[in-house]
Protein backbone atom coordinates (compact mmCIF):
# COMPACT_ATOMS: atom_id res chain seq x y z
CA UNK A 1 0.00 0.00 0.00
CA UNK A 2 1.07 3.53 -0.48
CA UNK A 3 2.53 4.84 2.72
CA UNK A 4 2.27 8.30 4.14
CA UNK A 5 5.57 10.14 4.29
CA UNK A 6 6.08 11.40 7.78
CA UNK A 7 9.27 11.70 9.76
CA UNK A 8 7.23 12.06 12.94
CA UNK A 9 6.70 8.32 12.74
CA UNK A 10 10.07 8.07 14.48
CA UNK A 11 8.28 8.96 17.72
CA UNK A 12 6.18 5.83 17.44
CA UNK A 13 9.25 3.75 16.87
CA UNK A 14 11.45 5.38 19.49
CA UNK A 15 10.55 3.20 22.49
CA UNK A 16 11.34 0.07 20.52
CA UNK A 17 14.65 1.42 19.32
CA UNK A 18 15.76 2.54 22.74
CA UNK A 19 14.81 -0.70 24.44
CA UNK A 20 16.49 -2.94 21.91
CA UNK A 21 19.55 -0.77 21.46
CA UNK A 22 20.09 -0.64 25.19
CA UNK A 23 20.17 -4.41 25.40
CA UNK A 24 22.08 -4.96 22.21
CA UNK A 25 24.55 -2.28 21.34
CA UNK A 26 26.48 -2.05 24.55
CA UNK A 27 27.00 -5.79 24.90
CA UNK A 28 27.74 -6.03 21.20
CA UNK A 29 30.47 -3.46 21.46
CA UNK A 30 31.93 -5.35 24.39
CA UNK A 31 31.99 -8.55 22.42
CA UNK A 32 33.65 -6.91 19.45
CA UNK A 33 36.17 -5.55 21.87
CA UNK A 34 36.96 -8.99 23.22
CA UNK A 35 37.14 -10.57 19.81
CA UNK A 36 40.26 -8.71 18.86
CA UNK A 37 42.15 -9.54 22.02
CA UNK A 38 43.88 -12.53 23.54
CA UNK A 39 42.58 -12.55 27.07
CA UNK A 40 44.60 -14.50 29.64
CA UNK A 41 42.83 -13.06 32.59
CA UNK A 42 41.25 -9.79 33.57
CA UNK A 43 44.55 -7.99 33.81
CA UNK A 44 46.47 -9.59 30.99
CA UNK A 45 45.21 -8.82 27.54
CA UNK A 46 46.96 -8.71 24.26
CA UNK A 47 45.62 -7.06 21.15
CA UNK A 48 45.76 -9.56 18.31
CA UNK A 49 43.65 -7.92 15.65
CA UNK A 50 42.06 -10.31 13.20
CA UNK A 51 44.09 -13.35 14.22
CA UNK A 52 41.14 -15.10 15.83
CA UNK A 53 38.96 -14.41 12.80
CA UNK A 54 41.45 -15.91 10.39
CA UNK A 55 42.07 -18.92 12.54
CA UNK A 56 38.39 -19.60 12.99
CA UNK A 57 37.37 -19.22 9.37
CA UNK A 58 40.07 -21.53 8.10
CA UNK A 59 39.18 -24.23 10.56
CA UNK A 60 37.81 -27.27 8.72
CA UNK A 61 35.86 -28.47 11.70
CA UNK A 62 34.02 -25.18 11.69
CA UNK A 63 33.29 -25.54 8.01
CA UNK A 64 31.90 -29.02 8.58
CA UNK A 65 29.75 -27.81 11.42
CA UNK A 66 28.47 -25.03 9.17
CA UNK A 67 27.60 -27.53 6.47
CA UNK A 68 25.73 -29.73 8.91
CA UNK A 69 23.93 -26.67 10.17
CA UNK A 70 22.82 -25.67 6.68
CA UNK A 71 21.47 -29.14 6.00
CA UNK A 72 19.65 -29.10 9.29
CA UNK A 73 18.07 -25.70 8.78
CA UNK A 74 17.16 -26.60 5.22
CA UNK A 75 15.37 -29.74 6.37
CA UNK A 76 13.62 -27.79 9.10
CA UNK A 77 12.16 -25.34 6.61
CA UNK A 78 11.25 -28.02 4.10
CA UNK A 79 9.32 -30.04 6.65
CA UNK A 80 7.89 -27.53 9.08
CA UNK A 81 6.56 -24.91 6.69
CA UNK A 82 4.35 -27.12 4.50
CA UNK A 83 3.32 -29.27 7.44
CA UNK A 84 2.44 -26.24 9.55
CA UNK A 85 0.35 -24.65 6.81
CA UNK A 86 -1.38 -27.94 6.04
CA UNK A 87 -2.36 -28.48 9.67
CA UNK A 88 -3.52 -24.88 10.00
CA UNK A 89 -5.83 -25.46 7.04
CA UNK A 90 -7.44 -28.42 8.76
CA UNK A 91 -8.22 -26.55 11.94
CA UNK A 92 -11.82 -25.54 12.64
CA UNK A 93 -12.77 -22.03 11.65
CA UNK A 94 -15.57 -21.24 14.00
CA UNK A 95 -15.12 -20.55 17.69
CA UNK A 96 -16.24 -23.03 20.27
CA UNK A 97 -14.75 -25.75 22.38
CA UNK A 98 -13.17 -27.55 19.42
CA UNK A 99 -10.87 -24.73 18.47
CA UNK A 100 -10.07 -23.85 22.08
CA UNK A 101 -8.97 -27.40 22.80
CA UNK A 102 -7.02 -27.61 19.54
CA UNK A 103 -5.16 -24.37 20.15
CA UNK A 104 -4.19 -25.37 23.67
CA UNK A 105 -3.00 -28.79 22.58
CA UNK A 106 -0.99 -27.42 19.70
CA UNK A 107 0.72 -24.89 21.91
CA UNK A 108 1.88 -27.46 24.47
CA UNK A 109 5.23 -28.46 22.92
CA UNK A 110 6.27 -24.83 22.77
CA UNK A 111 5.83 -24.28 26.47
CA UNK A 112 8.20 -26.90 27.81
CA UNK A 113 11.68 -25.65 28.73
CA UNK A 114 14.11 -26.81 26.13
CA UNK A 115 16.33 -28.81 28.45
CA UNK A 116 13.28 -30.72 29.69
CA UNK A 117 12.31 -31.47 26.11
CA UNK A 118 15.70 -32.91 25.43
CA UNK A 119 15.61 -34.95 28.60
CA UNK A 120 12.16 -36.36 27.99
CA UNK A 121 13.08 -37.36 24.46
CA UNK A 122 16.21 -39.08 25.75
CA UNK A 123 14.02 -41.46 27.72
CA UNK A 124 11.31 -41.48 25.07
CA UNK A 125 13.74 -42.85 22.51
CA UNK A 126 15.45 -45.46 24.61
CA UNK A 127 14.76 -48.91 23.23
CA UNK A 128 14.55 -50.44 26.69
CA UNK A 129 12.37 -48.02 28.69
CA UNK A 130 11.08 -45.43 26.22
CA UNK A 131 7.69 -45.48 24.48
CA UNK A 132 8.90 -44.69 20.97
CA UNK A 133 12.24 -46.41 21.28
CA UNK A 134 10.58 -49.58 22.49
CA UNK A 135 8.04 -49.42 19.67
CA UNK A 136 10.70 -49.03 16.98
CA UNK A 137 12.98 -51.63 18.43
CA UNK A 138 10.54 -54.33 19.48
CA UNK A 139 7.40 -53.79 17.43
CA UNK A 140 8.95 -52.64 14.17
CA UNK A 141 12.02 -54.79 14.60
CA UNK A 142 14.52 -52.11 13.64
CA UNK A 143 17.62 -52.06 15.77
CA UNK A 144 17.39 -48.62 17.24
CA UNK A 145 20.45 -47.14 18.89
CA UNK A 146 20.69 -43.50 18.04
CA UNK A 147 23.68 -42.65 20.26
CA UNK A 148 25.85 -44.77 18.02
CA UNK A 149 24.28 -44.66 14.58
CA UNK A 150 24.69 -41.24 12.89
CA UNK A 151 21.65 -41.45 10.59
CA UNK A 152 19.44 -42.48 13.50
CA UNK A 153 20.83 -39.59 15.54
CA UNK A 154 19.87 -37.22 12.74
CA UNK A 155 16.40 -38.68 12.45
CA UNK A 156 15.92 -38.46 16.20
CA UNK A 157 17.01 -34.84 16.30
CA UNK A 158 14.74 -34.02 13.35
CA UNK A 159 11.77 -35.76 14.94
CA UNK A 160 12.23 -33.86 18.15
CA UNK A 161 12.73 -30.59 16.31
CA UNK A 162 9.68 -30.96 14.08
CA UNK A 163 7.55 -32.04 17.03
CA UNK A 164 8.74 -29.08 19.04
CA UNK A 165 8.56 -26.24 16.56
CA UNK A 166 5.93 -27.00 13.93
CA UNK A 167 3.28 -25.62 16.31
CA UNK A 168 4.86 -22.20 15.92
CA UNK A 169 4.27 -22.31 12.19
CA UNK A 170 0.76 -23.64 12.76
CA UNK A 171 -0.17 -20.82 15.10
CA UNK A 172 1.18 -18.16 12.79
CA UNK A 173 -0.46 -19.69 9.74
CA UNK A 174 -3.76 -20.13 11.55
CA UNK A 175 -3.80 -16.54 12.75
CA UNK A 176 -3.05 -15.48 9.21
CA UNK A 177 -5.91 -17.58 7.88
CA UNK A 178 -8.33 -16.15 10.41
CA UNK A 179 -7.49 -12.69 9.16
CA UNK A 180 -9.03 -13.34 5.77
CA UNK A 181 -12.48 -11.72 5.63
CA UNK A 182 -15.39 -14.07 4.93
CA UNK A 183 -16.32 -12.10 1.82
CA UNK A 184 -13.40 -13.67 -0.06
CA UNK A 185 -14.69 -17.15 0.60
CA UNK A 186 -18.16 -16.03 -0.36
CA UNK A 187 -16.93 -14.55 -3.61
CA UNK A 188 -15.03 -17.75 -4.36
CA UNK A 189 -18.17 -19.74 -3.74
CA UNK A 190 -20.08 -17.49 -6.14
CA UNK A 191 -17.32 -17.94 -8.71
CA UNK A 192 -17.53 -21.74 -8.23
CA UNK A 193 -13.86 -21.95 -7.38
CA UNK A 194 -12.43 -25.34 -6.43
CA UNK A 195 -10.88 -25.83 -2.95
CA UNK A 196 -7.47 -25.87 -4.59
CA UNK A 197 -8.18 -22.53 -6.31
CA UNK A 198 -9.34 -21.08 -3.00
CA UNK A 199 -6.06 -22.14 -1.44
CA UNK A 200 -3.85 -20.97 -4.26
CA UNK A 201 -5.54 -17.67 -5.13
CA UNK A 202 -6.96 -16.52 -1.81
CA UNK A 203 -5.49 -18.24 1.22
CA UNK A 204 -1.84 -18.51 0.23
CA UNK A 205 -1.51 -14.94 -1.09
CA UNK A 206 -3.20 -13.54 2.01
CA UNK A 207 -0.84 -15.53 4.23
CA UNK A 208 2.30 -14.31 2.51
CA UNK A 209 3.23 -11.81 5.22
CA UNK A 210 2.74 -14.31 7.98
CA UNK A 211 4.61 -17.04 6.17
CA UNK A 212 7.56 -14.78 5.56
CA UNK A 213 7.80 -14.23 9.30
CA UNK A 214 7.53 -17.98 9.86
CA UNK A 215 10.32 -18.73 7.38
CA UNK A 216 12.69 -16.15 8.79
CA UNK A 217 11.92 -17.07 12.36
CA UNK A 218 12.38 -20.80 11.88
CA UNK A 219 15.48 -20.27 9.83
CA UNK A 220 17.13 -18.06 12.43
CA UNK A 221 16.09 -20.09 15.42
CA UNK A 222 17.11 -23.38 13.85
CA UNK A 223 20.44 -21.90 12.88
CA UNK A 224 21.08 -20.97 16.49
CA UNK A 225 19.69 -24.14 18.02
CA UNK A 226 21.62 -25.50 20.96
CA UNK A 227 19.91 -26.98 24.01
CA UNK A 228 17.65 -29.65 22.55
CA UNK A 229 20.11 -31.43 20.26
CA UNK A 230 22.85 -31.06 22.85
CA UNK A 231 20.81 -32.75 25.55
CA UNK A 232 19.64 -35.45 23.17
CA UNK A 233 22.87 -36.42 21.44
CA UNK A 234 25.61 -34.24 22.87
CA UNK A 235 26.61 -33.50 19.30
CA UNK A 236 27.33 -37.12 18.56
CA UNK A 237 27.93 -39.79 17.68
CA UNK A 238 31.30 -38.17 17.20
CA UNK A 239 30.61 -35.04 15.21
CA UNK A 240 27.49 -36.25 13.43
CA UNK A 241 25.04 -33.85 15.02
CA UNK A 242 27.43 -31.13 16.07
CA UNK A 243 25.70 -28.05 14.75
CA UNK A 244 27.23 -24.64 14.73
CA UNK A 245 26.32 -23.46 18.21
CA UNK A 246 27.24 -26.77 19.78
CA UNK A 247 30.63 -26.46 18.14
CA UNK A 248 30.96 -22.91 19.42
CA UNK A 249 30.28 -23.93 22.99
CA UNK A 250 32.66 -26.87 22.74
CA UNK A 251 35.28 -24.48 21.51
CA UNK A 252 34.70 -21.88 24.17
CA UNK A 253 34.58 -24.41 26.98
CA UNK A 254 37.51 -26.34 25.62
CA UNK A 255 39.71 -23.47 24.68
CA UNK A 256 38.75 -21.34 27.61
CA UNK A 257 39.63 -18.20 25.71
CA UNK A 258 37.04 -15.50 25.74
CA UNK A 259 38.68 -13.65 22.88
CA UNK A 260 38.56 -16.59 20.51
CA UNK A 261 34.98 -17.39 21.49
CA UNK A 262 34.02 -13.78 20.98
CA UNK A 263 35.49 -13.79 17.49
CA UNK A 264 33.62 -16.97 16.65
CA UNK A 265 30.43 -15.40 17.96
CA UNK A 266 30.83 -12.41 15.71
CA UNK A 267 31.43 -14.68 12.74
CA UNK A 268 28.42 -16.77 13.68
CA UNK A 269 26.32 -13.66 13.93
CA UNK A 270 27.46 -12.45 10.54
CA UNK A 271 26.70 -15.80 8.91
CA UNK A 272 23.16 -15.77 10.23
CA UNK A 273 22.85 -12.13 9.25
CA UNK A 274 23.94 -12.66 5.67
CA UNK A 275 21.72 -15.68 5.11
CA UNK A 276 18.73 -14.01 6.73
CA UNK A 277 19.23 -10.87 4.69
CA UNK A 278 19.33 -12.83 1.48
CA UNK A 279 16.21 -14.75 2.49
CA UNK A 280 14.48 -11.53 3.42
CA UNK A 281 15.25 -9.85 0.11
CA UNK A 282 14.09 -12.88 -1.86
CA UNK A 283 10.83 -13.06 0.06
CA UNK A 284 10.29 -9.31 -0.27
CA UNK A 285 10.65 -9.46 -4.00
CA UNK A 286 8.20 -12.34 -4.21
CA UNK A 287 5.78 -10.32 -2.15
CA UNK A 288 6.18 -7.10 -4.05
CA UNK A 289 3.21 -7.70 -6.28
CA UNK A 290 1.09 -7.83 -3.15
CA UNK A 291 1.59 -4.17 -2.37
CA UNK A 292 -1.86 -2.60 -2.25
Amino acid at each position, binding site marked *: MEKWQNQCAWFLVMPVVLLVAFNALIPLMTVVNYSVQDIFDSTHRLFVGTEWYRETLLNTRLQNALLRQLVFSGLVLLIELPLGVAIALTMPRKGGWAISATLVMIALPLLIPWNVIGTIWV*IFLRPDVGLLGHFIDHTLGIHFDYPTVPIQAWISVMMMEVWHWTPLVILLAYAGLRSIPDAYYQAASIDTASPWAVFWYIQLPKMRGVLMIAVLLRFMDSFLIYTEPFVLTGGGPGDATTFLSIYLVKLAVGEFDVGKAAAFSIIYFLIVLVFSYVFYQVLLRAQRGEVR
Partner: protein
Amino acid sequence: MKLRLRFIWLLIYLLVLLLPIYWMLNMSLRDNNDIMSRMALFPDHPVIHNYVQILTDPSWYWGYINSFAYVSINTVICLVVALPAAYAFSRYRFLGDKHLFFWLLTNRMAPAAVFLLPVFQLYSALGLLDTYIAVALAHTLFNVPLAVWILEGFTSTVPREIDETAFIDGYSLPRFFLMVFIPLIRAGVGVTAFFCFMFSWVELLFARTLTVTNAKPIAVVMTRTVSASGLDWGLLAAAGMLTIVPGALVIYFVRNYIAKGFALGRV
Protein backbone atom coordinates in the same frame (compact mmCIF):
# COMPACT_ATOMS: atom_id res chain seq x y z
CA MET B 1 -20.49 -32.02 13.92
CA LYS B 2 -19.84 -33.37 10.47
CA LEU B 3 -16.66 -35.40 10.45
CA ARG B 4 -14.85 -34.17 7.40
CA LEU B 5 -11.78 -35.78 5.94
CA ARG B 6 -9.55 -32.90 6.92
CA PHE B 7 -10.42 -33.29 10.59
CA ILE B 8 -9.05 -36.81 10.47
CA TRP B 9 -5.66 -35.45 9.49
CA LEU B 10 -5.87 -32.96 12.33
CA LEU B 11 -6.74 -35.73 14.76
CA ILE B 12 -3.80 -37.81 13.61
CA TYR B 13 -1.49 -34.86 14.05
CA LEU B 14 -2.82 -34.09 17.52
CA LEU B 15 -2.38 -37.70 18.54
CA VAL B 16 1.23 -37.73 17.43
CA LEU B 17 1.75 -34.39 19.11
CA LEU B 18 0.43 -35.57 22.42
CA LEU B 19 2.50 -38.74 22.61
CA PRO B 20 5.66 -37.21 24.12
CA ILE B 21 3.49 -35.11 26.40
CA TYR B 22 1.69 -38.18 27.55
CA TRP B 23 5.08 -39.78 28.06
CA MET B 24 6.11 -36.90 30.27
CA LEU B 25 2.93 -37.36 32.28
CA ASN B 26 3.67 -41.04 32.49
CA MET B 27 7.15 -40.40 33.84
CA SER B 28 5.92 -37.84 36.30
CA LEU B 29 3.74 -40.43 37.98
CA ARG B 30 6.47 -43.01 38.47
CA ASP B 31 9.51 -43.60 40.64
CA ASN B 32 12.97 -43.17 39.17
CA ASN B 33 13.77 -46.83 39.56
CA ASP B 34 10.58 -47.76 37.83
CA ILE B 35 11.26 -45.41 34.94
CA MET B 36 14.69 -46.78 34.41
CA SER B 37 13.82 -50.43 34.71
CA ARG B 38 11.14 -51.04 32.10
CA MET B 39 8.88 -49.55 29.49
CA ALA B 40 5.35 -49.21 30.77
CA LEU B 41 2.55 -47.80 28.63
CA PHE B 42 0.58 -47.04 31.75
CA PRO B 43 2.14 -46.62 35.18
CA ASP B 44 1.36 -49.70 37.26
CA HIS B 45 1.38 -47.94 40.57
CA PRO B 46 1.05 -44.22 39.91
CA VAL B 47 2.69 -42.10 42.55
CA ILE B 48 2.19 -38.43 43.17
CA HIS B 49 5.15 -37.68 45.39
CA ASN B 50 6.89 -35.85 42.56
CA TYR B 51 4.07 -33.36 42.36
CA VAL B 52 3.75 -33.13 46.11
CA GLN B 53 7.43 -32.32 46.39
CA ILE B 54 7.14 -29.50 43.91
CA LEU B 55 3.95 -28.01 45.23
CA THR B 56 5.06 -28.00 48.85
CA ASP B 57 8.66 -26.89 48.47
CA PRO B 58 8.81 -23.08 48.50
CA SER B 59 11.91 -22.91 46.36
CA TRP B 60 10.01 -24.89 43.72
CA TYR B 61 6.78 -23.02 43.61
CA TRP B 62 8.49 -19.69 43.96
CA GLY B 63 10.33 -20.60 40.84
CA TYR B 64 7.00 -20.77 39.02
CA ILE B 65 5.79 -17.55 40.52
CA ASN B 66 8.98 -15.73 39.66
CA SER B 67 8.94 -16.95 36.11
CA PHE B 68 5.32 -16.00 35.67
CA ALA B 69 6.03 -12.54 37.08
CA TYR B 70 8.85 -11.46 34.84
CA VAL B 71 7.34 -13.16 31.78
CA SER B 72 4.09 -11.26 32.26
CA ILE B 73 5.91 -7.97 32.67
CA ASN B 74 7.92 -8.71 29.56
CA THR B 75 4.83 -9.54 27.51
CA VAL B 76 3.12 -6.33 28.50
CA ILE B 77 6.17 -4.19 27.74
CA CYS B 78 6.63 -5.87 24.37
CA LEU B 79 3.03 -5.35 23.31
CA VAL B 80 2.91 -1.75 24.48
CA VAL B 81 6.03 -0.64 22.62
CA ALA B 82 5.64 -2.87 19.61
CA LEU B 83 2.10 -1.84 18.61
CA PRO B 84 2.87 1.81 17.81
CA ALA B 85 6.12 0.80 16.13
CA ALA B 86 4.39 -1.80 13.98
CA TYR B 87 1.80 0.77 12.97
CA ALA B 88 4.54 3.23 12.06
CA PHE B 89 6.43 0.68 9.96
CA SER B 90 3.29 -0.33 8.16
CA ARG B 91 1.75 3.06 7.44
CA TYR B 92 4.61 5.52 7.17
CA ARG B 93 7.73 6.01 5.15
CA PHE B 94 10.49 7.64 7.09
CA LEU B 95 14.23 8.01 7.00
CA GLY B 96 15.92 4.67 7.49
CA ASP B 97 12.70 2.72 7.98
CA LYS B 98 13.63 -0.37 5.98
CA HIS B 99 17.07 -0.62 7.60
CA LEU B 100 15.65 -0.10 11.05
CA PHE B 101 13.11 -2.84 10.46
CA PHE B 102 15.74 -5.34 9.46
CA TRP B 103 18.12 -4.25 12.22
CA LEU B 104 15.45 -5.16 14.76
CA LEU B 105 15.41 -8.71 13.54
CA THR B 106 19.20 -8.99 13.64
CA ASN B 107 18.96 -8.90 17.40
CA ARG B 108 17.63 -12.40 17.30
CA MET B 109 20.54 -13.59 15.20
CA ALA B 110 23.36 -13.68 17.65
CA PRO B 111 23.95 -16.69 19.86
CA ALA B 112 22.77 -15.60 23.27
CA ALA B 113 25.78 -17.04 25.02
CA VAL B 114 27.78 -14.25 23.48
CA PHE B 115 25.89 -11.55 25.27
CA LEU B 116 25.83 -13.17 28.65
CA LEU B 117 28.84 -11.61 30.26
CA PRO B 118 28.35 -8.05 28.95
CA VAL B 119 24.64 -8.10 29.82
CA PHE B 120 25.46 -9.30 33.29
CA GLN B 121 27.96 -6.52 33.76
CA LEU B 122 25.49 -3.95 32.44
CA TYR B 123 22.64 -4.89 34.71
CA SER B 124 24.96 -5.35 37.64
CA ALA B 125 26.25 -1.82 37.17
CA LEU B 126 22.66 -0.58 37.21
CA GLY B 127 21.94 -2.45 40.42
CA LEU B 128 19.17 -4.43 38.78
CA LEU B 129 20.42 -7.94 39.42
CA ASP B 130 17.99 -10.47 40.80
CA THR B 131 14.92 -8.39 39.98
CA TYR B 132 11.95 -9.19 37.81
CA ILE B 133 12.42 -6.05 35.78
CA ALA B 134 15.96 -7.03 34.85
CA VAL B 135 14.95 -10.28 33.23
CA ALA B 136 11.85 -8.71 31.71
CA LEU B 137 13.96 -5.99 30.10
CA ALA B 138 16.70 -8.34 29.00
CA HIS B 139 14.16 -10.52 27.24
CA THR B 140 12.83 -7.57 25.27
CA LEU B 141 16.02 -7.89 23.24
CA PHE B 142 14.60 -10.81 21.31
CA ASN B 143 10.91 -10.46 21.98
CA VAL B 144 10.33 -6.89 20.88
CA PRO B 145 11.69 -7.45 17.35
CA LEU B 146 9.50 -10.51 17.03
CA ALA B 147 6.46 -8.58 18.25
CA VAL B 148 7.11 -5.71 15.86
CA TRP B 149 7.55 -8.04 12.91
CA ILE B 150 4.42 -10.09 13.56
CA LEU B 151 2.25 -7.08 14.32
CA GLU B 152 3.51 -5.24 11.25
CA GLY B 153 2.50 -8.19 9.12
CA PHE B 154 -1.03 -8.12 10.47
CA THR B 155 -1.27 -4.35 10.37
CA SER B 156 -0.50 -4.40 6.67
CA THR B 157 -3.51 -6.58 5.97
CA VAL B 158 -5.83 -3.82 7.18
CA PRO B 159 -6.60 -1.39 4.34
CA ARG B 160 -5.46 2.14 4.93
CA GLU B 161 -8.92 3.38 3.96
CA ILE B 162 -10.14 2.34 7.37
CA ASP B 163 -7.67 4.64 9.10
CA GLU B 164 -8.64 7.48 6.83
CA THR B 165 -12.35 6.94 7.42
CA ALA B 166 -11.82 6.98 11.15
CA PHE B 167 -9.75 10.14 11.07
CA ILE B 168 -12.37 11.86 8.95
CA ASP B 169 -14.96 10.78 11.48
CA GLY B 170 -12.98 12.66 14.10
CA TYR B 171 -11.07 9.93 15.91
CA SER B 172 -7.79 10.99 17.46
CA LEU B 173 -4.85 8.65 16.93
CA PRO B 174 -4.92 7.07 20.41
CA ARG B 175 -8.69 6.60 20.32
CA PHE B 176 -8.56 5.18 16.82
CA PHE B 177 -5.85 2.82 17.95
CA LEU B 178 -7.73 1.46 20.92
CA MET B 179 -11.27 1.41 19.57
CA VAL B 180 -10.89 0.62 15.91
CA PHE B 181 -7.46 -0.64 15.09
CA ILE B 182 -6.53 -3.17 17.74
CA PRO B 183 -9.83 -5.04 17.39
CA LEU B 184 -9.09 -5.39 13.70
CA ILE B 185 -5.70 -7.02 14.23
CA ARG B 186 -6.91 -9.22 17.04
CA ALA B 187 -5.39 -12.36 15.60
CA GLY B 188 -1.98 -10.73 15.40
CA VAL B 189 -2.17 -9.38 18.94
CA GLY B 190 -3.22 -12.77 20.30
CA VAL B 191 -0.47 -14.62 18.54
CA THR B 192 2.15 -12.03 19.49
CA ALA B 193 1.16 -12.06 23.14
CA PHE B 194 1.44 -15.81 23.21
CA PHE B 195 4.84 -15.90 21.48
CA CYS B 196 6.30 -13.22 23.74
CA PHE B 197 5.08 -15.15 26.73
CA MET B 198 6.40 -18.41 25.38
CA PHE B 199 9.88 -17.32 24.35
CA SER B 200 10.41 -15.50 27.61
CA TRP B 201 9.05 -18.41 29.62
CA VAL B 202 11.47 -20.97 28.20
CA GLU B 203 14.55 -18.77 28.08
CA LEU B 204 17.19 -20.12 30.40
CA LEU B 205 20.54 -18.38 29.89
CA PHE B 206 19.68 -14.79 30.65
CA ALA B 207 17.19 -15.76 33.32
CA ARG B 208 19.81 -17.77 35.10
CA THR B 209 22.56 -15.21 34.72
CA LEU B 210 20.59 -12.25 35.93
CA THR B 211 18.97 -13.84 38.95
CA VAL B 212 20.21 -15.19 42.25
CA THR B 213 17.41 -16.04 44.65
CA ASN B 214 14.61 -13.49 44.66
CA ALA B 215 13.73 -13.78 41.03
CA LYS B 216 15.03 -17.24 40.31
CA PRO B 217 12.96 -18.74 37.53
CA ILE B 218 11.51 -22.21 37.37
CA ALA B 219 13.83 -23.29 34.58
CA VAL B 220 16.77 -22.75 36.88
CA VAL B 221 15.14 -24.51 39.80
CA MET B 222 14.65 -27.50 37.54
CA THR B 223 18.36 -27.88 37.06
CA ARG B 224 18.40 -28.80 40.70
CA THR B 225 16.99 -32.14 39.74
CA VAL B 226 20.52 -33.33 39.12
CA SER B 227 21.88 -34.84 42.27
CA ALA B 228 24.70 -37.17 43.19
CA SER B 229 22.69 -40.21 42.15
CA GLY B 230 22.00 -38.78 38.73
CA LEU B 231 19.01 -37.10 37.20
CA ASP B 232 15.71 -37.32 39.04
CA TRP B 233 13.61 -38.12 35.97
CA GLY B 234 10.28 -38.31 37.69
CA LEU B 235 10.72 -34.99 39.42
CA LEU B 236 11.88 -33.35 36.23
CA ALA B 237 8.89 -34.73 34.35
CA ALA B 238 6.48 -33.49 37.00
CA ALA B 239 8.10 -30.07 36.91
CA GLY B 240 7.81 -30.12 33.13
CA MET B 241 4.10 -30.94 33.32
CA LEU B 242 3.54 -28.07 35.69
CA THR B 243 5.46 -25.69 33.45
CA ILE B 244 2.91 -26.20 30.75
CA VAL B 245 0.03 -24.93 32.85
CA PRO B 246 0.66 -21.14 32.80
CA GLY B 247 1.34 -21.11 29.08
CA ALA B 248 -1.74 -23.21 28.39
CA LEU B 249 -3.77 -20.70 30.35
CA VAL B 250 -2.33 -17.85 28.31
CA ILE B 251 -3.23 -19.39 25.02
CA TYR B 252 -6.64 -20.28 26.34
CA PHE B 253 -7.22 -16.63 27.19
CA VAL B 254 -6.08 -15.35 23.83
CA ARG B 255 -7.86 -18.05 21.86
CA ASN B 256 -10.69 -15.74 20.88
CA TYR B 257 -8.23 -13.18 19.69
CA ILE B 258 -6.57 -15.70 17.44
CA ALA B 259 -9.64 -17.58 16.28
CA LYS B 260 -11.98 -14.71 15.61
CA GLY B 261 -9.54 -12.89 13.44
CA PHE B 262 -10.47 -10.18 11.09
CA ALA B 263 -13.70 -8.47 12.02
CA LEU B 264 -14.43 -6.18 9.10
CA GLY B 265 -17.88 -5.10 10.04
CA ARG B 266 -19.66 -1.94 9.02
CA VAL B 267 -17.11 0.79 9.36
